[in-house]
């Protein structure tokens, strides 16, 4: 079953961060997942977490150049959520019986592992950035994440010129890379 053109458009929108498309997917699928989580001893907060995690997994998948979705968005999201929820239940030791539900599911095991691996990498980056301290953290975030230019950054942080800011950024970056790669290699 190939997703129809409407779904393809939505997925393209999702990959490009189009908030209208994201909102549509969100609205169309959230209640299904919420009901599922609530019916399986979860809370509203847990439902939100699980659903957003699944949206991120779909987003990551949609961004791949080799991307194809062989089922409906709904089915994919539900399958991911179910897998995530089972894992969460197991972690909490609340795993009782197989979660019931009549919704169609697809095999997402490969995608799921890929997603977990990425999450681990992001966690490493998160830790590395947060252990840098200020102003390093904000400076690097400004340059590499928000893509601000050096002149604007120098002005914002109060450096007398862009070269001094660049100098500082270099030192910070070296520390970050050291922190990141030390963990990243272990993680491999």
């Amino acid at each position: 079953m190939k997703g129809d053109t409407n779904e393809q458009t939505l997925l393209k929108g999702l990959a490009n961060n189009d908030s209208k498309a994201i909102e549509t997917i969100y609205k169309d699928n959230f209640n299904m997942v919420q009901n599922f989580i609530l019916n399986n001893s979860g809370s509203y907060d847990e439902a939100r977490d699980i659903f957003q995690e699944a949206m991120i997994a779909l987003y990551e998948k949609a961004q791949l150049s080799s991307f194809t979705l062989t089922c409906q968005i709904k089915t994919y999201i539900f399958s991911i959520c179910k897998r995530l929820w089972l894992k969460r239940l197991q972690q909490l030791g609340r795993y009782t019986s197989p979660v019931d539900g009549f919704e169609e599911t697809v095999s997402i095991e490969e995608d799921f592992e890929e997603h977990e691996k990425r999450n681990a990498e992001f966690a490493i980056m998160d830790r590395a950035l947060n252990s840098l301290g200020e102003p390093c953290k904000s400076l690097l975030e400004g340059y590499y994440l928000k893509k601000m230019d050096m002149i604007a950054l120098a002005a914002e942080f109060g450096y007398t010129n862009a070269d001094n800011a660049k100098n500082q950024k270099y030192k910070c970056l070296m520390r970050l890379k050291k922190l990141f790669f030390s963990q990243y290699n272990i993680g491999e």
Partner: protein
Amino acid sequence: MDDILLLDAIERYLNGEMGTEEQEHFNQLRKNTPEIDQMVVEHNMFLHQMDLYASHRNIKYSLHDIHANLLNRGDLNEGGAISSKGKIIQFWNKYKRVTAIAASVGGVIALFISGLTVYFSSAVTDPKLEQLGKDLEAVKKNQQYQGTIINEVKTKIPLNARLLSGGSGFLIDTKGYIVTNAHVLKGTGAVVVNSKGQEFNADIVHIDLQKDLAILKIKDIDFTPVKTIPYTIQKSNSDLGEEIFTLGYPRNDIVYGMGYLSAKTGFNGDSLSYQIQISANPGNSGGPVFNKNGDIIGVLSTRQAQADGVSFAVKSRNIYTIIGDLNKSDTSLQPIKLPTKSALKGMERKAQIHKVEDCVYYVKAYGR
């Protein structure tokens, strides 16, 4: 300083910001110096990781915003009030006086209306139909009977009030909200008694005469909120022939009865209720009607006077309607959360009853 220039060059190279001549020069440099080549590869990998991290963070934030937006617009429902506590307190301080005045006016009106209700209203006017609420005499007699046996259990009915009517009710929220029939509550207050004979004071929170449903809230220090409610309340209609059972208090002890759903409408085609074939007696009013999975499908309310075993139950989806109205109209209440999880499916009837009976209450209404 050289290192800084080198890194700068690598970044410009990777971002494609170099001119052709410079780029060629740099390519040559990479070929001849393995160290630099290695640095380029490593930095490229790092930048890629940074980009992924950035987009991951962005999508996380935008999902968060979208969730809040949809919630505000009412497209999503999380079952509770979304505004923060601080706001409510500010609001309360600001409008304390107004609220007090409104509440006292409301109180006077409520008293007046309930007075009128006692004297004039009755949901059932057709002589062919009998409400299953108990009348004063029967309750009084049972009350005395109980008094002689269990002396240590003191009634919580105020001394200067007298019992007016009685019936059954059942929990719909772990905080102590009970659904019963409107016609059971012929008075200004109520006490409820659980299956073990323990009494609790309860407030009348809401009465809907048209649907013949009412909501009580247990307000008693002796009451400990239950952990879970084992049944759910069915939203959809049930089918003809469905096996049903009920629990109620036609006497001081809880009584079980079973039967089947015999028509999709109630007396004279009333679409708010079902016709059920079950033996029901005065006192069964307001009791739950379960299907065989233990989901509540209705609230037992009336029976036909000249026919044997023909009873009527208000359809359970009306509970959702009145709870919805109530949660919307009365913001002073903690929102009522109906149970969402059934623990009774596939169980034997005896086990089902054992689990359910603690949630079914004897309702006694009193007034002056």
